[in-house]
């Protein structure tokens, strides 16, 4: 079952000096129930605008969004099952973090104990009484995540949740998001930290110039990257390179190894080709493609 559905979403903003800026251009997106869904894209790709459309903050020029099966106009019927964080969290600057959360909690009849609980959960338990405007960016981010968790939501929509966090904070958030997904919630995050996304996401969508250019399970999206390559290690690199090229393989010398453009299923053929010429392989493995590689390849035109 899809927990978020986006169909032909289109959003244009008017420019001050005339003309229009297309932020989202016919986006189709389906986020299944459960797990962590990464929403990736370069700056200006339309990620935040899409999230704002999902949360009813921005009205689409065309297309439609459904969150927890509720159309945008009926968002209020499901909003208490959604926790969200959009860009940098914004709260009343002269109130403490705890007071800000308590005000929000009161909207849903949530007691102060739950506020203390989420503050502890995001590591702000002992800084909850500090004034919000004195928080560092990382602390603001943690408070935003705490606010998103207050309702014990089924769906978390988090826009750059690790923004401003230090490495330890990023790791904590990663573990937190993973644990939330493991509890059965759906976590929808946009992020630039592709290494982090790859570590915690089950599925991803890559956005460029307002359009979705890849979507699916992480492994599937990775496979859409550069043509599959095999890493070959031998003693006689130059000899092996000549033999493989002679056998019709596309191969290059990269440091102390060869990169052969071929799917993993061609491993045996590569090994046999070299062995017939008395060159024996010491290592033969698929070349690991990172999400970052795929992201950069797929979004190259949009960067």
């Amino acid at each position, binding site marked *: 079952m899809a927990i978020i559905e986006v169909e032909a979403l289109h959003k244009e903003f008017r420019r001050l000096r005339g003309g229009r800026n297309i932020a989202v251009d016919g986006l189709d997106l389906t986020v299944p129930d459960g797990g962590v869904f990464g929403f990736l894209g370069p700056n200006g790709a339309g990620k935040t605008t899409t999230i*704002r459309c999902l*949360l*009813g*903050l*921005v*009205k689409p020029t065309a297309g439609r969004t459904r969150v927890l099966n509720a159309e945008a106009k009926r*968002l*209020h019927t499901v*909003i208490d099952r*959604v926790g*969200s964080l*959009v860009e*940098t*969290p*914004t*709260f*009343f*600057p*002269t*109130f403490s973090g705890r*007071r800000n959360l308590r*005000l*929000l909690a*009161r*909207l*849903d*009849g949530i007691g102060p104990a739950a506020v203390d609980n989420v503050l502890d959960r995001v590591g702000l338990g002992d800084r909850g009484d500090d004034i919000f405007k004195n928080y560092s960016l990382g602390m603001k981010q943690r408070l935003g995540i705490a*606010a998103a968790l207050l309702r014990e939501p089924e769906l978390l929509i988090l826009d750059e949740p690790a923004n401003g966090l230090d490495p330890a904070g990023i790791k904590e958030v990663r573990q937190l998001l993973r644990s939330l997904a493991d509890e059965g919630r759906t976590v929808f995050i946009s992020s630039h930290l592709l290494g982090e996304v790859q570590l915690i996401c089950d599925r991803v969508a890559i956005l460029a110039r307002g359009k979705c250019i890849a979507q699916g399970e992480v492994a599937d999206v990775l496979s859409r990257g550069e043509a599959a390559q095999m890493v070959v290690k031998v003693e006689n690199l130059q000899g092996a390179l000549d033999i493989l090229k002679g056998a019709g393989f596309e191969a290059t010398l990269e440091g102390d190894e060869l990169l052969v453009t071929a799917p993993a299923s061609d491993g045996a053929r590569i090994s046999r080709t070299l062995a017939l010429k008395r060159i024996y392989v010491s290592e033969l493995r698929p070349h690991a493609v990172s999400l970052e590689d795929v992201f950069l390849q797929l979004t190259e035109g949009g960067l």
Partner: protein
Amino acid sequence: MRLLGVEFRRAFARRITKLVFILSIAGIIAAGLSVFFTSKNETIQVTARGPKIAGFVDACTRGEPLPVDSVPPLPAVGTSARASACQTFADQLTTDTIDKRFHLTNLLDILKHVSAFAAIIAWLIGASFIGAEWRSGSFGTLLTWEPRRFRVMLAKAIAAIVVSFIIVMVLQALLVGALYPSAVYHGSTAVTGSGDFVHFPTAAAFWRSLSYLGLRSGALAAGAALMGFAIGAIGRNTAASLGAGFFYIAIVEGAIIGNFVAKARPWLLVRNAIVFINNTRIDAVPHRTPLQAGLITFGYAVALFFIATLVTRARDVN
């Protein structure tokens, strides 16, 4: 109701609310002390000047030249009404100069003048209530908890109205309390009779009149808060609301429409507010009753609020 409760909590917890309240109280204390120490119970001095006043009245009654710039039309010399009119004339001339007492009935004029100040404070509270939210971005955060913008706007507007009304009512009560000792010790608490300062049939009638004036002033402040809120919501900025309010009242109404568009004068905001506060018709808008003036003033505020709500519903929150 939860949303409304949260908005009330926030409104009362805001620094500007507290600051306005504290500064106003400081002003009230200063006013109370100032009036107390500058007012004097000069009943004795009035008596001491009695012979001088009596001489003036005698000269006036006989039709002799008087040491004043102008003399109002008086009954003919020799008639019985002449002496009485001369006494009234003498009273009018001498009252301001020799009566330094603080009369309790002065509170009516003071509250009328304070109502304009109260309306400005309320405008500021209403404007900053929404303007500060847009500035901090917390309005967007709230919409991720309650996406129905009309409800959000209504709750905030009600909070701004009620908080402004309460603050103005409390400040007026404190002002009356601060000035009351001046009337008791350095003036007069008399309110019944037929003189310049005492013209109420009963003390209860005076207090009732003062209370109604206070309520009208509080209601005007509530309307001003709603207008400030509405313009702040449209401009998404406190300063925009204050600037637009000043520009409209001082320039558009005061300088342009008020002077050059005679037909529009009965519909001007400030003139209707004056009629409403004074609870009497004024020459500038002779056909407007105080009730009509009040309804028109609040009609403008409510209309502005609905425009602001429509604008807020239509615009994106970035």
